[in-house]
């Protein structure tokens, strides 16, 4: 039910554009391109801003990294075919980013010895490769069919990890060769580095999993609704088209379908063998089906069915059949009220009605079948009718609550 309003709303008021990393026309991770698209400015401006920010104390590098982690890849963009040239550009960009960062550090007075700088570069490149890898994993599904990149991806991940480990080891190695504390420290640093390095991958994996699960649930629900609509509504519509010349049959089909759909949408199936309200609704539905007349059922209160009330239900059914036959297509209504001492059912039709003094033979018989059934179980039946005013049958049954058998 909510599908229509949702789509309508989307059509009229587009959601504010989300920030995505763009895979189309990117150099490194698509952050600059994505930001440019989001802000509606030229990509060159964004890139310049990043470079300037990077020069201003390295903030640009940090910002870039944050965007890389937290902005999701644009899911609506098809992956552009990659070529060697682009890979080379990317490598260059990665290199310059790392070198730039290092130069900045040294310019800021945290000068590093070359023996430390080189391992740092190794760590940087390793980290970059791994983070790139996380992106590729997200896209791997599209490429799963070809399968050619799987080995390359694994190899790249391996190289990344190796670089990180070697780099971290090299940083710590010369300084702390001796002592168990130093060894422990080194192990800790490597572990921390690996965790840090792999965190974006985990974040992405969790995000992908959640997205996939909700998509699957949506798909299941849609399939269920589609199956139901197909089995019921579509089927009925086909039948209705085939019976266009028979208004009675069309009414019957439409009413039956409406009832069914209503039950499916608004309430769980009540047990028609246990409770009076559900039993009366079931009986009315059966008569509706058999005679092609619309019957409106209103029940106030409810109670469990016992022998007497089962008789009342059967009498009500007879009255309904009667009304449906003689009402000549006019509406029939049932009203039942459960009171502490009695249950009363009214069956009313807006048909031509009749003069109780000149009752047709068959009608009298039915009346007696209704009356007889009620009388046998301790209830009463009253019929009121006058020509032009329709007919009303009133059934009254005392409840058994006090004098339980």
């Amino acid at each position, binding site marked *: 039910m909510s599908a229509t309003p949702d789509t309508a709303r989307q059509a009229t008021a587009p959601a504010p554009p989300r920030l995505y990393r763009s895979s189309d026309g990117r150099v490194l991770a698509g952050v600059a391109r994505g930001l440019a698209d989001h802000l509606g400015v030229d990509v060159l401006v964004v890139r310049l801003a990043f470079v300037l920010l990077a020069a201003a104390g390295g903030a640009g590098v940090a910002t870039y990294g944050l965007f890389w982690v937290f902005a999701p890849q644009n899911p609506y963009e098809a992956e552009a075919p990659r070529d060697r040239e682009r890979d080379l550009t990317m490598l260059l960009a990665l290199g310059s980013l790392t070198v730039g960062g290092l130069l900045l550090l040294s310019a800021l007075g945290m000068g590093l010895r070359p023996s430390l700088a080189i391992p740092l570069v190794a760590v940087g490149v390793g980290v970059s490769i791994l983070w790139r890898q996380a992106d590729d994993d997200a896209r791997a599904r599209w490429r799963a069919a070809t399968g050619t990149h799987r080995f390359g991806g694994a190899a790249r991940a391996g190289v990344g990890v190796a670089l990180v480990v070697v780099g971290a080891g090299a940083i710590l190695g010369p300084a702390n060769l001796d002592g168990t504390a130093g060894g422990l420290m080194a192990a800790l640093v490597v572990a921390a580095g690996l965790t840090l390095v792999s965190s974006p991958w985990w974040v992405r994996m969790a995000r992908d999993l959640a997205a996939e699960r909700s998509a699957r649930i949506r798909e299941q629900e849609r399939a269920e609704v589609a199956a139901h609509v197909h089995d019921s509504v579509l089927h009925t519509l086909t039948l209705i088209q085939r019976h266009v010349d028979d208004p009675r049959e069309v009414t019957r089909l439409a009413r039956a379908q409406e009832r069914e759909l209503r039950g499916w949408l608004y309430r769980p199936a009540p047990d028609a063998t246990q409770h009076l309200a559900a039993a009366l609704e079931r009986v009315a539905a059966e008569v509706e089906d058999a005679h092609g007349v619309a019957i409106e059922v209103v029940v106030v209160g409810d109670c469990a069915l016992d022998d007497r009330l089962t008789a009342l239900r059967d009498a009500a059914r007879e009255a309904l059949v009667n009304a449906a036959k003689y009402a000549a297509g006019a509406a029939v*209504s049932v009203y039942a009220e459960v009171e502490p001492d009695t249950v009363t059912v009214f069956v009313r039709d807006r048909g031509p009605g009749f003069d109780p003094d000149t009752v047709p033979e068959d009608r009298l018989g039915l009346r007696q079948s209704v009356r007889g059934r009620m009388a046998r179980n301790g209830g009463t039946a009253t019929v009121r009718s006058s020509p032009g005013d329709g007919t009303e049958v009133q059934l009254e049954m005392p409840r058994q609550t006090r004098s339980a058998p």
Partner: protein
Amino acid sequence: MTDQPTPARPVRVVLVDDHRMFRSGVRAELAAVDPAIEVVGEAEDAQQAVSVITATRPDVVLLDVHLPGGGGRAVLQELVTELPDVKFLALSVSDAPEDVIAVVRGGARGYVTKSITGPELAAAVRRVADGDAVFSPRLAGFVLDAFAATTDVAEVDEDLDRLSQREREVLRLIARGYTYKEVGKALFISVKTVETHVSAVLRKLQLSNRHELTRWATARRLV
């Protein structure tokens, strides 16, 4: 129903429903039955309804219960106190008690189902325009159910929480499918008196703060 006041006073109506086919159907039927009822505006969601109703100030709004953008209840919330002269008549395919009770308690002057015939709808619109209430058999049944006399007398300490014997009789007949005219005939009272009783019941339904009303509506969904 033929018991309309003789000189047909023009009534301006706004239709709020998200199905265009339904709107055009209602428009055509109203025009065929009672040309003095003029449809001055249409809206297909809650937001649009608020602006159309504010702009046109109709006598009666035919309000669908299920609407994109918060449903009929959102429209009522926004406008009932602001535009006291505009009357709302809820119109829905839904039979779910909590929907019905929610819009009526939200300020609608009545509730009819979409299966209502053209002449009946026109009569209902006129009745609402005159400040009376309109109860379908089903709504009457719900009210009888909700105000069932089974509650402890000690618990029911306000007049608002009780229906008078007469009101109960009127509701019972409406639930049995009687028109207002037939109710009057059966109880030997005038149609105007029937309308007065029904309006009194509506007021009780809207103002009663007995929490059983809400509890009843929620419990019904689970039964």
